[in-house]
């Protein structure tokens, strides 16, 4: 039978429903690249790459979740809420997507709805660091001290350095740089070779008024990544600027 196996007969057409292994590797590449960009703090690029990965395979929950998270990071919470709603229509009981929508609602200002969704996320099957991070963020907003427990739990579930960094980002967003400093220092300890962690650490130190420490962190960031535009810009701002309204504003009201 082996000599007939190479004949092209009408009924033996290739199965189109099976995903092409080449495209599968490409989409994995897009997803990996998206995650890589996210870990570098390039959220705009990461969002684009997540979309590219989804163009290939719409069943990638990570892609949908990544998009929602990137939109939130890019201060587009209204769009993130809309997008998470759409994603939840496709994956109704996905806990991470529920958490994403909760975070979007929290950023918009609807903490009641955010709490309901976060409850749903915690009840959903499985567990993830992201759900605990969102829970912690909500606990801060409603004035409960359990946020420390939530963030510690997130760091236990996922020991990646990105988790403490994103927790620091949450504290920063809520105008609490002193708590953010502890988390970002932990991220730097876990990954001293990650320039983005150093950059965020510099931002947190700047918000706390520790300008010398911030300069050191950004210089370290530039040592690891020579053309980090944001770090260069922040450094030049600190070096050039003496007295400025923006800095007084930040000192009083936080970085918002």
């Amino acid at each position, binding site marked *: 039978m082996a000599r007939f196996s190479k004949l092209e007969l009408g009924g033996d057409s290739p199965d189109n*429903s099976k*995903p092409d292994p080449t495209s599968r590797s490409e989409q994995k590449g897009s997803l990996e690249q998206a995650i890589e960009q996210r870990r570098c703090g390039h959220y705009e690029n990461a*969002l684009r790459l997540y*979309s590219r990965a*989804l*163009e290939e*395979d*719409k*069943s*990638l*929950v990570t*892609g949908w979740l990544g*998009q929602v998270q990137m*939109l939130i990071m890019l*201060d*587009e*919470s*209204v*769009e*993130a809420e*809309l*997008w998470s709603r759409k994603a939840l229509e*496709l*994956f*109704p*009981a*996905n806990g991470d997507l529920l958490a994403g929508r909760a975070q979007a609602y929290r950023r*918009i*200002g*609807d*903490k*009641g709805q955010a709490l309901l969704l976060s409850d749903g996320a915690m009840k959903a*099957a*499985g567990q993830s660091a992201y759900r605990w991070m969102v829970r912690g963020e909500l606990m801060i907003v409603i*004035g409960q001290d359990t946020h420390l427990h939530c963030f510690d739990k997130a760091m236990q579930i996922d020991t990646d350095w990105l988790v403490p960094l994103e927790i620091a980002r949450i504290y920063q967003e*809520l*105008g609490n740089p002193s708590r953010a400093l502890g988390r970002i220092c932990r991220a730097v300890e876990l990954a001293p070779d990650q320039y983005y962690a150093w950059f965020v650490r510099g931002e947190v130190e700047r918000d706390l008024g520790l300008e010398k420490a911030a300069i050191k962190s950004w210089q370290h960031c530039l040592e690891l990544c020579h053309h980090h535009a944001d770090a260069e810009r922040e450094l030049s701002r600190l070096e050039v600027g003496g007295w400025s309204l923006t800095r007084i504003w930040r000192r009083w*009201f*936080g970085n*918002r």
Partner: protein
Amino acid sequence: MPQCSSCQFQNMPGTTHCGRCGASLLLATARINVHPPRATKWAKTWRKTMIWRAWYAINQPIVDFARQLDVDPDNRWHSIFAALRLIIPGWPQFVASKFKLGGFLLGGYLACGLLAVIFYGTTIGSLLIATAITIHSIAVYDVARSSTKDYPVRNSRILLGCGLLGTFLYLPLFNLVPYYAAPFSIQIDRDPLLVGDVLLVNRGAYVWAPPQVGDIVVYVIAPAQVGGVAQGRNAVINITLQRIDRVLAGPGQSVMWDGKTLTIDGQPATHRPLNLAFSALPLTLIVPPQHYFILPSGERLPELLPNGESLASTLSIIPIDNIQGRVFWRNSPWSRMGSMR
């Protein structure tokens, strides 16, 4: 055996949705837009402003309240209706079960408001109005303070709440009330109006209807300087300022005043000038169209002016445009408080 990409559950062949989590199993071939909507730069800037945050923050308790009532929170009418709650100080506190504070705020506001009406037009009245507005601001502050511990958001909510109340409640109120009840303080004693009297004048009384005979009105005489005698010496007398007196005859009516008796169209007049003690010289005239006859009874014209008769005729005929409003109430002093007829 199709596997769910969300929960990894192995589903039966032929199923379209995951049996565990309900996710679609046909997503790989589905035609769905995977590019999320993006906010414009302008939208992002706008959302960072305090106004947007504050509006959202003030709207939020209302939406929550709507949810409690099991109504659609996305329906803007529910939100707008509930936002009106801030108009009455103490109402949001009652809803939040802060009955003591709500009672204090509402009671204080009503008490100040009532006293302000009684003392309207005086310094004490102004102070009471300011106190009432302060109490209202405290009510808004309490709503904002209870809603968040985030100081910038709290401050923005206070600013927005007070700004909205100021713009949509107090600004129109402070424009309308002085128009329909303008306080008018008497500066010169001319019985029956004495120094310190506060009269309320409806400036909108003659927008839609003409003045009626018998109305007490505020009017102005065109500024004029006339030669006369004052205290036995020649003097230039200024005739101007706002005056208050009664409308005695309307357009087209013939008037005869002999110093004691006023006859309108040959009949004794049913109304008298406010002050008969100082009456002008005798005169006879016919009121022209768009004019009214108001005897300047408070003036000592016969004593002041050598040609008082002709001047009195001129001063008595008031164009309708010079009538500024109708005096309807004496608000101060309390002993003589009452309507002006």
